[in-house]
């Protein structure tokens, strides 16, 4: 048990270190900006005095390490600074959008995870049959398809031709829950179609890997029933890879939302970051990338830790 705790603690420490490094990169990246942020904001007509005043106001005259620390301290208290484009508090801009994005990702995950696991396990059990080959070709195709292609095909059929779902997923904070679900069906389906393929290929591969190991063959030769082998011999060892597959793809979902949100004009974080990149609103881009990156790092960390604590060899040490 002690070994388990040390391993988990190690991973947690490493994860925090990575988070720290990520924040440093995001901060330093902006330092590399050719020219001056204030010059950038005020454009051609800026005089020396106004640029200097602006630098003072944004605190750009302070040395970088002081600014980094105060930026980090601000974020720890939920203060991301103000947007350059409209002078609003960034935390205010982000709040609702973050929950919208998480909602979309959750709906997509609720559809895609059970679907992918079922399909993946079936493909592994019935491998080399027509079903498996078809699944292989179909998933290979859907992995290589851009999200917006899937999205527009769905819009063409389900909202233009049949008129079942809206093509714009505009939700506001006071949209009812079921209405909200109805509006995000198309974007969630798009995300599902994109992730399922990857998730089920990984599930299939890890199960096949497992079924090829000697102890499964041993169980087979002893004449155990197929269901007993799968439930009692294979599954305990399969949890780690399967959990890994799920969490990694959830992390992918968080990023995949960017394009999908733009297609469906969904008011989420992805859309905010794209808009801000176009306006070169650097503090907002910084804040959004930090949130996306932190979620990504945390999910990957969760995958690591879950695969450690579900590992039977570590749970029952000799």
């Amino acid at each position, binding site marked *: 048990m002690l070994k388990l705790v040390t391993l988990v603690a190690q991973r947690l420490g490493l994860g925090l270190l990575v988070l720290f490094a990520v924040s440093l990169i995001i901060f330093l990246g902006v330092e590399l900006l050719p020219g001056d942020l204030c010059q950038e904001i005020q454009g051609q007509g800026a005089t020396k005095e106004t640029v200097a005043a602006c630098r003072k106001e944004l605190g750009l005259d302070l040395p970088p390490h002081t600014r980094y620390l105060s930026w980090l301290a601000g974020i720890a208290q939920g203060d991301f600074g103000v947007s350059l484009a409209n002078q609003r508090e960034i935390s205010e801009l982000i709040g609702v959008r973050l929950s919208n994005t998480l909602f979309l990702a959750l709906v997509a995950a609720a559809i895609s995870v059970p679907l992918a696991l079922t399909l993946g396990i079936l493909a592994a059990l019935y491998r080399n049959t027509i079903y498996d080959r078809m699944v292989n070709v179909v998933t290979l195709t859907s992995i290589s398809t*851009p999200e917006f292609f899937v999205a*527009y095909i769905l819009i063409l059929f389900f909202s233009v031709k049949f008129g079942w779902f809206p093509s714009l997923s505009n939700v506001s904070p006071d949209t009812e829950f079921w209405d909200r679900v109805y509006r995000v069906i198309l974007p969630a389906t798009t995300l599902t179609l994109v992730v399922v393929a990857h998730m089920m290929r990984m599930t299939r591969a890890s199960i096949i890997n497992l079924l090829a190991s000697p102890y499964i063959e041993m169980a087979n030769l002893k004449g155990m029933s197929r269901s007993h082998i799968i439930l009692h011999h294979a599954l305990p060892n399969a949890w780690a890879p399967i959990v890994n597959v799920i969490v990694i793809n959830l992390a992918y979902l968080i990023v995949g939302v960017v394009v999908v949100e733009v297609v469906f004009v969904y008011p989420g974080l992805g859309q905010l970051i794209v808009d801000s*990149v176009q306006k070169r609103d650097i503090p907002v881009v910084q804040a959004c990338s930090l949130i996306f990156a932190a979620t990504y790092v945390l999910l990957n960390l969760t995958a690591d830790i879950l695969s450690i604590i579900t590992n039977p060899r570590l749970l029952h040490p000799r």
Partner: protein
Amino acid sequence: MSDSVDTTVEQTADALPPPPRQRGLSVAWRELKKAPLSAKFGLLVIVGYVFVALFAPVLTPYGESEIVGSEFEPWGGPFVLGTDNLGRDMLTRLIYGARNTIGIAFVTTCLAFLIGGVAGILAAALAGWVDQALSRLVDVLMAIPALIFSLLLLTIFGTSIPTLIVIIAVLDSTRVFRLARAVSLNVVVMDFVEAARLRGEGIGWITIREVLPNIMPPLVAEFGLRFCFVFLTIAALSFLGLGIQPPTADWGSMVRDNATLITYGDVTPLLPAGAIALLTVGVNFVVDWFLHKTSGLRDEK
């Protein structure tokens, strides 16, 4: 089906003495004839795209960004696939799009392989602190999702084709680095590398003449996969309006510009998106087959 034929052929080939060395071309041709249908289809697609990309000016009726009619003209008549949101010929833009989009993605992938491959082999060959420093750097870079990172970098450096190529190549080289390092680690411990070291060969010689030829097959397969990934990333960025900028014809931004047509039930905006999908599917099919051929990875047995 075809796999069972494959294995029997190989088994008999194993039993016989090795055949006289044949010329590469005829071997490749025989392998190709045995290839599964999906791989043949993929090759056909790739050859078709390359042909269209190379001969774009000959194949197109109009100039790349020449305005030839009014906006959103229907299919048929002088414009086979109608016109786009500015009245440019859709077919012409599609063909030039092949040239620009594939060309830029190809250059980016090559650059990513140059950076990642060299760094990976060096990390494996030099070991010690070089390996540690490079590996930790890559770990941190990979902790940030690539699309988000490129959005951040594009905000900082602005959107132009050279910055786009460099940014995506650097971010993508992290994956190449990991693979190149992993496969070279198995090679650098071999006797012939040790022999070269004792001979006093420099690190350049060891990298290029000793290690590189031995790690080619996985790198080639990875090149195909990376190309698809880069191609999709650039298409996504262009679609978001942050990649290849107008008036350069490019499939991602063409989808974006003409997306409004979808709401009238017109499939024109799907054409460039479909063109992207078809190429990546083709490349993936070929890579899949190539991996099966070279790695001996057959879970069928």
